[in-house]
């Protein structure tokens, strides 16, 4: 195609969107029946390059609409409006075991969307595309305030939505990798929920004293939210993923201080020493470390370490005592935690206790452990630094990319509805503003 006469137009709307917003990609004025590749390129904070691409054929008027037309091949196929984001993978030659996580939420992810001639699968960086645009994907809506919290020995960040408030609140906990991971909390604040991301494994106080935190640490975080002038104290929920679910369930059932209005547990389980804090929970997990398996690709499979589900009530949270609504999200291909088995046992316990009306389980076939906000790449396995051994190894999380990405999209939408229904009063699920999702 003559570059000087090339009139092909590429449009992506919105050009600046939130991470959980869909976008529309339109290619126009291509020659009729033209074969082209739509390509996405992202350079992450660690300096690695990620790419995704789909093969399309323009229609008789020279248009390709990614939300309506099928991709005939590439890193995704079929009609996949957001395939260019969720199927992003490290470019050939990258080091193995990478995982894409945004640590600085105050600036957006930048993705370059380009159109290349023909159905291509490699060598994109050595060619000049026919057209390209830059798209920003934000974890923080305009007006969301980011407030580091260091009082009471906490290592946390509070994200407040714009406006006068008061807002419902949420404690947001990640898993065994530690660090202060902010992106989910900032995204939830962008949806009107004052969210506190809490580091409870690598917090400053742990680094300084060499000791794990006790349960009061979490209660202090709860109090920060409860007492905040812009947070509605009796509208606080808790969300945990992986190890974060262990803490969430423990606090939801046993804490005298925390009066949670609702809880969300993603890829977790209720098996833990009922009388222990973080340290005891971690020890309990490690005692069966010999049940670790290794996959054919040399990836660590940890799900058996927590199995079988014990019948001894000293080692699982007494779900019958739960008093608030609970949303449990499970990937059926979770290779890291036995989330499915745990969900089944929790359901049984609650049925016997008569409080199963509080429980909703979302179980996704072929989804893995890392069920994250939608339209972000799926990591089936990645490098994981064990806090106990300080070793880095490749851990198998599980999940088949397309199914896992669908699960992320569906779970996120349902999670937002669940939180809004339970944290706001008087709102009907039907009127919740989710039109942009």
């Amino acid at each position, binding site marked *: 195609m003559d570059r000087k006469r090339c009139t092909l137009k590429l449009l992506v709307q919105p050009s600046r969107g939130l991470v959980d917003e869909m976008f529309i990609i339109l290619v126009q004025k291509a020659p009729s029946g033209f074969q082209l590749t739509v390509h996405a390129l992202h350079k992450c904070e660690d300096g690695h390059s990620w790419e995704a691409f789909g093969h399309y054929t323009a229609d008789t008027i020279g248009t390709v609409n990614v939300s309506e037309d099928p991709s005939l091949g590439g890193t995704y196929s079929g009609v996949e409006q957001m395939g260019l984001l969720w199927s992003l993978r490290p470019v050939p030659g990258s080091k193995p075991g990478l995982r894409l996580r945004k640590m600085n939420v105050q600036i957006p992810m930048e993705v370059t969307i380009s159109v290349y001639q023909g159905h291509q699968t490699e060598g994109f960086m050595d060619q*000049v595309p026919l057209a390209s645009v830059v798209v*920003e994907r934000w974890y923080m809506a305009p007006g969301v305030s980011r407030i580091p919290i260091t009082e009471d020995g906490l290592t946390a960040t509070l994200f407040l939505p714009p406006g006068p408030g008061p807002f419902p609140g949420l404690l947001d906990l990640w898993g065994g990798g530690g660090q202060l991971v902010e992106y989910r909390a900032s995204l939830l604040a962008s949806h009107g929920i004052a969210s506190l991301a809490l580091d409870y494994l690598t917090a400053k106080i742990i680094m300084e004293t060499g000791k794990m935190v006790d349960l009061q640490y979490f209660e202090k975080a709860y109090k920060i939210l409860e007492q905040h002038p812009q947070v509605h104290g009796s509208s606080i929920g808790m969300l945990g993923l992986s190890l974060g679910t262990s803490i969430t369930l423990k606090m939801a059932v046993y804490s005298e201080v925390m009066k949670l209005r609702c809880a969300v547990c993603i890829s977790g389980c209720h098996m833990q020493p009922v009388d222990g804090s973080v340290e005891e929970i971690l020890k309990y997990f490690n005692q069966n470390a010999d049940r670790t398996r290794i996959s054919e690709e040399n990836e660590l499979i940890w799900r058996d370490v927590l199995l079988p589900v014990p019948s001894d009530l000293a080692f699982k949270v007494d779900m019958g005592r739960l008093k608030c609504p609970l949303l449990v999200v499970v990937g059926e291909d979770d290779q890291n935690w036995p989330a499915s088995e745990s969900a089944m046992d929790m359901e049984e316990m609650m049925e016997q206790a008569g409080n199963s009306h509080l429980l909703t389980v979302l179980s996704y076939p072929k989804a893995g452990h890392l069920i994250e906000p939608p339209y972000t790449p799926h990591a089936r396995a990645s490098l994981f630094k064990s806090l106990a051994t300080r070793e880095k190894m490749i851990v198998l999380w599980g999940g088949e990319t397309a199914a896992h990405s669908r699960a992320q999209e569906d779970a996120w939408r349902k999670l937002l509805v669940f939180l809004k229904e339970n944290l706001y009063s008087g709102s009907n699920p039907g009127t919740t503003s989710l039109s942009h999702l």
Partner: protein
Amino acid sequence: MSPPTSPILSVQPTRGLVDEKLKVVVESLPPGSPVTLHSLHHSEDEDYWEAFGHYVSDFRGMVSVSEDLSFGGTYTGKEDMGLLWSMRPVPGSRKGLRLRKMNVCSPMLHNISVYSGHVSEGFREQTPLTSVLVERWYMAPGVKRIDIMEKGVRGTLFIPPGPGPFPGLLDMWGGGGGLIEYRSALLASHGYVSLAMDYFNSQELESADLEFKYFETAFNIIKEHPQVIPDRVGMFGLSLGSLVTMHVAAESTIVKPRCCICVSGSHFYPNTFFCIAENNHHVWRDMWIHLLDDPSKKVDVGKINCPILLVNGKDDQNVPADECAEDIALLMNAAGNGHLLSRVLYPDTGHLIEPPYSPHFRASNFKAAGVATKTVMLLWGGQTKPHSDAQEDAWRKILSFLQHNLYSSTPPRAKL
């Protein structure tokens, strides 16, 4: 104790370009309740601008600005963008203000809020039910901004993202002078390499002398840029910039613009800017009418041989744009190139026809660069609602004209 019912306000997109439409929806209100939707902007000059509309929620407790009617405020009726175009300085502000974004690398921020009841004043003293912050950008992501200081030309070049090559535009504002970048940034966001020029500055030029070579040099800077298609460079002018555009298109033997857009322009050369005071506002329109009879004072538009689009407001109090457009048509028809001319004329529309959804100013403070030594209050004209409609319609027609003449591979035609 259960949490209070909180209405939910959603504005999409939260980060959009200034010419993109907003979708403003409020949910979870009590059914049938009166509310006020309010927008507040704190300008770079530290002034506050606001707009508001009075609405009533439906049986579901919802208000949708694009579908419901406003019954009072700074705009009424079904106006999906009323919260932006009807903005005006808050009570107590300085007089004669004009809202212009000078730093295009950062967005304009608007606080959109919902107040209980139909409120018309004292917004700052009340707490809204809810509010969100919205960003409005003149620059799309990936657009590059480059300072130009070469061959005596001072300006800013904006380049769209992507490999190119792209069509180009020389973008010129009016007699106020200075380097105004926002329209160029927006044009680059639509795929045009655009050079905003500072050409009317008392340091560089003498009074109303317009250096011909300066514009030819500037045009060539764009044309010779590696990411520009050399035979697809046009010119875009407003007010005095229109005069420059027509002059260069008619007289230059070096520069051949592919097409021209002239907004609120006249085709005659004023000798001096003299002012007639009227209602304390300086009205320049009428003083120029008599010059129409003198051909030596006019651009020889018969020599223009590229498609040209004239965009004018019938209530332009600064320049007799309507009468000029008529005269230009006569002259071009007589020369046999009338088929290249397209004209749009908007009723009740003033001089400052800007990108859409920006507020309208019937009059504002003006300091003519290098000519007047004091600031005067200049009457631009136009009534807010029709003027805003004109801005929205004109922008769409301008983009379509540019797309057709600079992007399309078929030979350009003048008619839209």
